């Protein structure tokens, strides 16, 4: 990871390393729209397989954002390079959230992408589904932390969106502890609140034991 790339006043891709797991904590739609549009556009521009997992945003709305920003995506969508899917069906295909399964799907998507000639695989997901009463949804932090444990073999490129109006403050703090990078108020920061995955998993287990 190239820390020197981090800086203010630059585009997202200029300041994020090639492989990254970043979280966007937001409390207004205008700010999210700008960041998400830029993030997807940079993936398409770089020839990556780009997937958006929508929960609160409709596909039409998302396409509208890209169109308004002048992002050419229709051909990529036709070719399958860009796709929008429902977050709940993507994260919980069997109606249950199993972190290992979702990660395995991501890795296989990356392999398929590479074989098809894409530079990489990029995902951008809305995480509000985790607040619904879906079996296993309470394991979303475990999923987030396990992504960081396979980055040696799997170059993850992804942005997880958390609406601060929906998640409580304590959860948002934990979300920050499992993302090496964060975007807050449009600023990209190498996240000092991030802790080692093993350390976080141990905390999770301690919390589970308490409850």
């Amino acid at each position: 990871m190239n820390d020197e790339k981090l800086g203010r006043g630059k585009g997202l891709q200029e300041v994020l390393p090639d492989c990254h797991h970043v979280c966007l904590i937001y409390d207004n739609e205008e700010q999210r729209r700008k960041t998400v549009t830029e993030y997807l556009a940079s993936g398409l521009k770089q020839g990556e397989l780009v997937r958006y997992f929508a929960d609160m945003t409709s596909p039409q709305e998302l396409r509208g954002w890209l169109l308004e920003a002048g992002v050419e995506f229709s051909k990529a969508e036709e070719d399958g390079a860009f796709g929008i899917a429902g977050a709940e069906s993507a994260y919980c295909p069997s109606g249950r959230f199993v972190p290992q399964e979702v990660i395995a799907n991501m890795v296989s998507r990356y392999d398929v992408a590479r074989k098809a000639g894409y530079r990489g695989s990029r995902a951008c997901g809305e995480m509000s589904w985790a607040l619904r009463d879906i079996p296993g949804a309470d394991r979303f932090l475990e999923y987030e932390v396990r992504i960081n444990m396979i980055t040696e073999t799997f170059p993850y490129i992804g942005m997880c969106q958390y609406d601060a109006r929906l998640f409580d403050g304590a959860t948002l703090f934990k979300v920050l502890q499992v993302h090496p990078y964060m975007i807050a108020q449009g600023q990209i920061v190498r996240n000092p609140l991030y802790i080692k995955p093993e350390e976080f998993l141990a905390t999770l287990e301690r919390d589970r034991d308490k409850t």
Partner: protein
Amino acid sequence: MTEADRREEQPSQDLQKVDARILGQLLAAQNVVFALPDTLRIAEFYSQMLMTIPGITACRVCLGGSSVLAGEMASDVCPACETMPHLVQEDGTLIPTHLDFKCHLADQPGMRGIAVAADRHHFGFFVFQIDQATFLELYHSFISNLSSYVALILDNRRQKDLLQKANDDLERKVEERTHELKAANEELAAYREHLEELVRERTAELEARTAELKRMNDLFVGRELRMIELKCRIKELESKPGRSAAKAVDDED
């Protein structure tokens, strides 16, 4: 080395003991506060975050009307807190900083408190249960900076809310006045229309009366002229010899 030199050197020696990672966390936390929409979420977030600072075993963050505890505290004075209910008064104003405003939890043994206060208002407290005071002392000034920053953000939000409220009031007043003006205009337009109708009616009446007068006038003037003409004829006939005027007139007819 003099005592003064030693005092000057003390902060730099302390800084060497400070963990850069913790300082980074405190700085990152400043960025996050912008994205947290209310005092409850800020309290939840900071109570967790402050727990990562060495020496802190439990933390209570009271902000606005929200009070959040992370960890377990030995002291139990909070249920009787007289300060919290006043943090946000009924009219939405906050307690001015010149008033004595205390957290009794922070006064308990083994506890420390840092006020979250801006220039003019109290917003609350960060209260810590500590096991190693020396650790907390190292970070105290940085946490104070953070609390000032949170207070500044909350003060800005408060000012923004007040501004928004004033703006909304102004817009409401403008709307009311516009409505009143519209009603007055409509009344005026209706009155004007009525007045025009009245003028039209009166004009028509006057024109009819004038026409009647003219017709009468023409009639009377015509008769008068005819009378004058007849009188002249009578005189003329009477002046002729052997014919009486009456006979002459009869003959004429």
